[in-house]
């Protein structure tokens, strides 16, 4: 035992060369295996995010309220209520990006070498080990003639041919055909190599470039921009604006930051003023409700007053956003309290005579031939008097009425209610005012307000990310998966007078079955006598 220990101690053991720690870390970070592990973790966390209602999803408040204090504490600490913005999720995405970059850097040189310096020659054994191979007899005067035939067959089938000559060392054989491993022989062979779609080998790198463009662009958009909402109404009635928390004209928008069940609001000053001049809702059935299932389109007309660039008038429709100085305005939703954008009034003169029809737009005034001025005040969909003031019971068009400020030719101003429903002539509220009996003959339905979503993206990063990165990624993936790199070799060996044996072999990195068809076509077009096929 002691002797053994002694021998171990005295033996001069050479230490294995150690790889520097930095290299080992880089190798680890650039390994595809690491990338796959990251993908699996991301899949797991994303599924968790689907199962736990996230704090920006409708219904979160209720589900959060139903959780026990312990659940709130533990899940909140783990970031499960906002998993996609948790530090570890972002960290994983960052690591994945790093992995993609390092893996690409690590593997690109060899991929480039693979296509720039293709393997033009090979041994017979190597060729016969390829998934597609065949040995055929071809007749011809010399190797050059055979090579030309093969070249033209390759070219006809879409392969770019190249001819190469190589001297291969092989083991000599004895009389019985057995290999004699003590002797080698040199053998000259002529090769024709053809390939198609070699750039496909670089497809994965192109995919990675676009994927990184997408990641980085999206990240920059998140960091440099913000999202906000603005509730716009063309109605200038201060009571309505106050009661429904609306804006008719503003130079500030409110950012909402959600933190579990709390919403924090921040005011952001705009470099211009927005004024809502009109909103419209195109309905399928104009007599139906203004609910979403009876709507064809929404349109908000806004005016921008910019101290630098002057005035701009723009429309924001569904799926047709409007961009201005890095801000994009989108239709988000509507406050479906009934209102009207255009009213048709039927006025019966108190003194008798033909009724007068007046079309009155929201916020506008009209003048009658006798000099009476009618100014829009407000519109109520379900009229009711509350505390001596006109109000609405619901948002539905149950009892619509236009409230107007009318100035007589004498200069007296009075409040007038024009109802859509036919009221008895002797009803006090239907009594003639300012010389006319007023009736609301028609109105174009529109909601009280539209909610516009505003996206600020000063660098257009979202556009770069999704249009350049995203669409580029689609094309790159099509390029990678719908095409392939096909290679084919032919080794020409003389077997007799005017007789040659050609070993064909080939492979493709994708779509092997189609390649096999192509390979067979090439071989069959050349073969005068097929020897064998594996």
């Amino acid at each position, binding site marked *: 035992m002691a002797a053994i220990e002694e021998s171990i101690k005295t033996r001069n053991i050479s230490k294995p060369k150690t790889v520097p720690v930095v290299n080992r870390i880089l190798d680890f970070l650039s*390994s*595809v*295996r690491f990338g*796959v592990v990251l*993908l*699996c973790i*991301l*899949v797991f966390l*994303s*599924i968790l*995010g*689907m199962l736990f209602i*996230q704090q*920006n*999803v*409708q*219904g979160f*408040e*209720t589900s*959060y*309220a139903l959780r026990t204090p312990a659940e709130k504490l533990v899940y909140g600490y783990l970031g499960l209520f906002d998993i*996609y913005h948790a530090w570890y999720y972002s960290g994983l995405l960052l690591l994945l990006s790093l992995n993609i970059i390092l893996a690409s850097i690590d593997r690109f040189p060899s991929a480039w070498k693979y296509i720039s310096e293709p393997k033009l020659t090979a041994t017979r054994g190597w060729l016969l080990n390829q*998934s597609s191979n065949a040995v055929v007899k071809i007749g011809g005067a010399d190797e050059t003639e055979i090579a030309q035939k093969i070249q033209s067959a390759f070219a006809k089938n879409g392969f770019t041919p190249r001819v190469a000559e190589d001297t291969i060392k092989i083991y000599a054989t004895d009389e019985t055909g057995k290999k004699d491993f003590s002797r080698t022989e040199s053998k000259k062979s002529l090769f024709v190599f053809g390939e198609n779609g070699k750039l496909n080998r670089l497809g994965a790198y192109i995919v990675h470039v676009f994927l990184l463009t997408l990641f980085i662009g*999206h990240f920059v958009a998140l960091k440099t921009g913000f*999202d906000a909402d603005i509730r716009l109404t063309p109605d200038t009635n201060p009571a309505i604006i106050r009661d429904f928390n609306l804006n008719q004209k503003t130079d500030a928008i409110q950012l909402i930051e959600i933190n579990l069940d709390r919403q924090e609001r921040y005011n952001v000053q705009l470099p211009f003023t927005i004024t809502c001049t009109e909103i419209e809702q195109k309905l*399928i*059935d*104009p*007599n139906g409700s203004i609910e*979403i*299932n*009876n*709507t*064809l*389109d929404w349109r908000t007309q806004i005016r921008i007053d910019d101290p630098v660039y002057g005035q701009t008038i723009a429309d924001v429709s*569904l*799926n047709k*956003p409007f961009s201005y100085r890095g801000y*994009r305005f*989108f239709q*988000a939703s509507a406050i479906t309290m009934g209102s009207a954008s255009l009213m048709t009034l039927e006025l019966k003169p108190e003194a008798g005579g033909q009724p007068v029809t007046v079309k009155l737009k929201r916020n506008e005034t009209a003048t009658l031939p006798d000099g009476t001025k009618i100014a829009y005040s407000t519109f109520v969909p379900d009229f009711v008097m509350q505390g001596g003031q006109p109000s609405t019971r619901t948002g539905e068009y149950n009892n619509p009425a236009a409230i107007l400020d009318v100035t007589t030719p004498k200069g007296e101003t009075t409040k007038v209610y024009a109802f859509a429903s036919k009221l008895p002539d002797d009803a006090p509220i239907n009594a003639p005012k300012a010389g006319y009996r007023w009736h609301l003959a028609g109105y174009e339905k529109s909601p009280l307000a539209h909610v516009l*979503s505003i996206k600020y993206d000063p660098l257009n990063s*979202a556009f770069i*990310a*999704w249009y350049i990165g*995203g*669409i580029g*990624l*689609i094309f790159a*993936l*099509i390029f*990678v*998966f*719908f095409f392939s790199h096909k290679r084919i070799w032919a080794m020409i060996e003389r077997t007799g007078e005017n007789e040659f044996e050609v070993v064909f072999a080939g492979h493709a990195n*994708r*779509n092997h*079955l189609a390649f*096999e*068809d192509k390979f067979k076509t090439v071989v069959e077009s050349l073969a005068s006598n097929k020897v064998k096929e*594996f």
Partner: protein
Amino acid sequence: MSRLKTGLKTYRIMEEVSRIQKEVFIPRDDSAYTAIPAWRSYLPVILAIGGGFLMLGARLQIGSGFISDTALMMLALAAYLIAALFELTNLYAPSEMAKKIGLWSATLGVFFNLASWLVRWVNAWEFELVQLQASGNDANPWIFRYIPFANLYDLSLAFAFGAGITTLVLAHRKNFQFLSAFTLPIAALILTLARFIGGEHSNLMPILDSYWRPIHVGVASLSYGVALVCFAIAVVYLIKDKIKVEAMAIWASIFSLSVFATISGFSVFTEGVYRAGTFIPNLTGGKPINALFRLELPYVGLTLVGAGLLLLGSIIAFLIYIYGNKGIIKQEKAARGEFEDKLSLKERIGEIKETEAVEYIHYQSAKTIGHWMLRGAFVLQIITVIFWVSGIKSTSDVQAKLQAQLTQKPAQYVAVGKEIANKQQLSVQQMAAITPQQFDQAGRQHFQQNGGKMYLSLNSNPVEFAGLLTALAGTFFVILFAFRTDKLRERLPSLESLDSLMYKTACLAFAGLAMLLITGAIWANESWGRPWGFDSKETGALVAWLTYAAFLHTRISRGWKGRSSAYFAILGFLLVIFTYLGVSYLLPGLHSYA
């Protein structure tokens, strides 16, 4: 010990080399690889698509008197089932006639499927046109507003078409025509689900009126279809690779048990009853409204419990068979001196004792018992479906029956009251302020107001019924695969070609899902200025895409081919199904319409 390890490693390498040699170097059956030349091999595809568009032309010419899209969908369903039946017959009892009928039935199925979708496009246009004209609206929206990608019914129709056309394209190689036997039953299940979802037209949500919708949803349905075919190839690969049918049975039974456990608000295994959802007619003529109350169907719960117990029994029996058998095989190998991981020296040199031989017989008995239990479960599942359908069809006085059941179990009132409150989107404070008595009261009030209008319909529980049918189909296929399995394996193409095709379809599914994600993000950016919001459907599609990405990358990094890839393909498709159905029905989000 280290020698043992080295020996083990060498043994594994040799085994792998031998496997590869067998797969790669064994001369292949040339006829299996021969493609029918040129365009003729794609004739079924050309005819199905061309025929579909001719039907569209005929619909435009003939008008509303033309065959309805629902009837065409049912024809597609029938044709898919016939095609699958004949292809299965051909696998077990090869016949050129069965093969031809299978191929042309599949063609017919794809033709009807496409025709149904195209005719539906015209029907949707006319549906809204009638409303516009009736109300005197002269608006003339563009035709792509009506493209049938507006709800889950439309998507299901397109999904089944995606699977059908992919199967037909692959069938241009004769040796892949058998795939119809595996893909078309799933496509038929999707169409069955569509049938129960109901194809009533409804007005389009304005936000969906974008040219990105046909691009985004079109890509979704095609890539889902390719993922389905990839899944079917993975299952075929596993059968060919001699995976134990009993292992498949365990997974299929676990799936069935989870379906039974979760349907009817978890009442099957907790109360032994199944309650079907009820409807109230929609006065505006659209889809009926969910009445929120569920009515107990007689015997359905009991048969489901019975089927569940038998499935559980079969799982236990198969586990005993697989793991017990594994132990015996280990010891047999040890006795032969073959190296096996984690075997003690004693085990290696031991001999099979008599008692172990008895154990072996026990394990075989477990297998037999497991299969009988599985067959029993299958029969009970059929009976369940019969009870389910007859229960729904024969129940007329829903109000009285529901009243009687609610008197015994009034808890449903509170649950319905809570659902009503949830639908009103009350704030947390408002919800917290409502007492259980108030919820109960709200439920009772809802019943009083609507009880007389409530009715049962086959369409009131589409996902539950589709789940039951899928469980039934899963059990059926496992029983079928257990029958003459070796003959079936012989008829399937080589592992190499199946693996290659699985890889190819996974690549297409991966590229398709990438297109789906990107077009969806661009559309969202155009509509909301928010390309990515981790909405549940977005995340579901992302998760499925990442799974396919992992599938493709494990091939590069770890050389995972064959069986490992097949497991990934199965997982990927399950995630696709979860995105397609689970997200729409279970999770809140922007895509809840589809």
